């Protein structure tokens, strides 16, 4: 089956499965991090500092991906970093989707003054540069996981709001909505049972995209030390640390960077794949 962008089947296969497998593995590792980690992610061993990964000479089989300059196990820190990254992605992503989609649905369906108020609010909101906004919010809220999640919700709800509003407007103009109005069905019922199911694929695609963004934002904030405590094993913190010793121990930087990259990429590809899969017109 072909559409304007190429074979749907091919895209479904590669995209959805590859990204899904990667996300599944990472999520499982995050969930069972304490059990699968060979070492305590915080335990330092200054005599075993900067050990290289297993395939290089001078490596210690106990530290599969080597150690950082304080002798902490890179692999265990990656797993525990995944735990932090995925909990932020899940909680912040879902909460952002909920707030933004709700406001977007109301604006797109009710129109009138509700739409005007919400849309202007979105315009004003989007005028702030997001990263500066985030740092400002963290400064006010204080560091910590909860603050990061709140910051992401406060900044990114506009992304959902805009897209969902447009989609809801689109769906509201369809004849099936007119038929429902003629049938005398209440507005609330039309919004939830007629319009929402058709906007849902868009929300799901945006949600996985948003989870990727949440992972990046968490990494950025921990990179500049505005996340949870400094020695906590976050990917951003590992990258910041690895950067200082890149000439002596590149692996401290390279592994968290690679994992971060693949995870964010997988989130966005997974979202696209899901959208194609569940779009009732393409299906």
């Amino acid at each position, binding site marked *: 089956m072909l559409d304007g962008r190429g074979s749907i089947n091919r895209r479904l296969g590669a995209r959805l499965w590859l990204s899904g497998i990667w996300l599944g593995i990472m999520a499982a590792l995050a969930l069972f991090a304490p059990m699968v980690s060979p070492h305590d992610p915080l335990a330092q061993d200054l005599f075993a500092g900067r050990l290289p990964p297993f395939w290089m000479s001078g490596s210690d089989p106990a530290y599969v991906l080597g150690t950082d300059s304080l002798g902490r196990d890179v692999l265990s820190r990656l797993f525990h970093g995944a735990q932090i990254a995925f909990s932020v992605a899940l909680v912040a992503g879902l909460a952002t989707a909920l707030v933004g989609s709700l406001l977007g649905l109301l604006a797109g369906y009710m*129109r*009138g003054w509700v739409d005007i108020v919400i849309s202007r609010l979105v315009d004003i909101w989007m005028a702030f540069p997001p990263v500066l906004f985030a740092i400002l919010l963290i400064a006010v809220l204080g560091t910590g996981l909860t603050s990061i999640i709140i910051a992401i919700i406060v900044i990114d709800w506009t992304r959902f709001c805009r897209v969902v509003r447009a989609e809801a407007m689109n769906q509201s103009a*369809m*004849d*099936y909505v*007119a*038929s*429902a*109005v*003629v*049938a*005398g*069905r209440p507005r609330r*019922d039309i919004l939830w*049972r*007629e319009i929402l*199911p*058709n906007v*849902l694929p868009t929300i799901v695609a945006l949600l996985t995209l948003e989870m990727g963004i949440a992972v990046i934002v968490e990494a950025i904030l921990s990179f500049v030390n505005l996340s949870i405590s400094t020695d906590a094993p976050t990917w951003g913190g590992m990258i910041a640390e690895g950067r200082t010793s890149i000439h002596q121990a590149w692996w401290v930087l390279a592994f968290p960077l690679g994992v971060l990259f693949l995870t964010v990429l997988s989130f966005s590809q997974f979202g696209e794949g899901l959208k194609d899969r569940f779009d*009732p*017109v393409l*299906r």
Partner: protein
Amino acid sequence: MSAFLTVNSLSAVLHGFDQRVLRSVSFSIDTGEVLGLVGESGAGKSMIGKAILGILPSAISIIEGEILLNGEDLQKMRPADRRRLVGATAALIPQDPLTALNPSRRIEPQITNRLVDILGWSKSDARVRAMELLNEVHIDSPERVMGSYPHELSGGMRQRVLIASAFAANPKLVIADEPTTALDVTVQKQILRLIRELQARHATAMVFVTHDLGVVSKVCQRLSVLYGGKIIENSRVPDFFKGPRHAYSRALLAATPKYTDPDASLLPVDDAVIEAVAAEVLAADKEWRHGA
């Protein structure tokens, strides 16, 4: 006996424009009667139907006139009451079967929703009724169709489903908004026959919006010709096809392709005729403004 639906000098404007898009439209329909609304694109045919059902786009508002449904003035009712009354007595057969069914819901709830939620039927009664209706519109395997999604059905099947769903609650009034325009000719014929059959059986009053005079001759008893949102001729169908009174109607009738003579070249409506009818509409506008 007074007519079931009466529209009295109904006028509507598009926001930000001086001109009216509906110009003092008046007509009435008795129970069991079919009225055709004919005109070219943009003449306001569909808008009249939408005004009656209360689904005009927000950019268009009614500035005067009354819509009497069974003696009650819809314009004077509270929106919630109006919705309830319209929902209980009227139904719409929409133009485009592709967008008129919700793509992400199965057929069954789309037919039974109104019965269960608005009219308070039990789920199983509504299901039985839906099956009956699908039988009535000659769908062979109603069981399968009820469990299908709209994209699994052909255009003709979807239009049948829409017709079934329009007649589900035994409406007294059906607005058919170009129900056959999006279908190909062979399916068109079946669908027209179906609509007529159901209309006659249920003795429904019907407004049939179309640009196809051939369709009007098959379905309607009376017709109104529209130009620029104004009714320029009201006729009984046999009289109209014997000889329309208005020059524009005559040109419209002459422009209809003849199946008996397929080689004849198509006759466009003459520019002079259009100018004349446009001038007539503007003159009526002037008169209306002085009166108002």
